[in-house]
């Protein structure tokens, strides 16, 4: 009964080689988020989708892009990974935006290694 699924769990890429991380959800939630989490740090929000409406955080580098082709799936594209992009990437969902009693549910994460 997995709810937020991320693939792959571990990804190794080379410096500068584009990589795509995948997230899917069975919760039918409207909002999907991508976070970057480095070792011993809090998750850092990169962007979120409310339905098809894309919302970028002001400090998210242009190197990071996202696509949401339908309600269930969301992708994180890193166009030219640098060594500093090695991190855990977390996908999360929430039911809707602005609901008072709502919070975020996280997937297991994809650990990205850049060689």
């Amino acid at each position, binding site marked *: 009964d997995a709810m937020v699924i991320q693939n792959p769990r571990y990804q190794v890429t080379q410096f500068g080689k584009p990589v795509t991380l995948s997230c899917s959800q069975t919760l039918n939630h409207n909002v999907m988020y991508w976070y970057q989490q480095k070792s011993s740090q809090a998750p850092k929000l990169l962007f979120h989708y409310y339905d098809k409406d894309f919302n970028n955080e002001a400090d998210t580098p242009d190197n990071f892009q996202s696509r949401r082709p339908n309600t269930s799936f969301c992708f994180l594209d890193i166009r030219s990974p640098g060594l500093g992009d090695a991190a855990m990437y977390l996908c999360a969902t929430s039911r809707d*935006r602005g*609901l008072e009693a709502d*919070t975020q549910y996280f997937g297991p994460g994809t650990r990205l290694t850049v060689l």
Partner: protein
Amino acid sequence: QKEVEQDPGPLSVPEGAIVSLNCTYSNSAFQYFMWYRQYSRKGPELLMYTYSSGNKEDGRFTAQVDKSSKYISLFIRDSQPSDSATYLCAMRRVKAAGNKLTFGGGTRVLVKP
């Protein structure tokens, strides 16, 4: 100064002890408060969710919110080695854009058998 402060630990306790965790925050607009547990190399898992001030209990876990002091706590009773993890506090404003959460940096907890 960070909006949410959390002692990184590690906090080491013997099995069966009470684990006491806390966060302080500066933004009085925060109204919703959460605690997440994160095992090594896994995603955060929601443990407790509270609104405004007060206490909430769920099994061995008790969450407390003191908005007047801008201070939240999580207590774990009868701690088990399986409680060893990093605990993240998170909070958000009412009608925050995209339900955006502000996280503390996490406290690493070690429960020794």
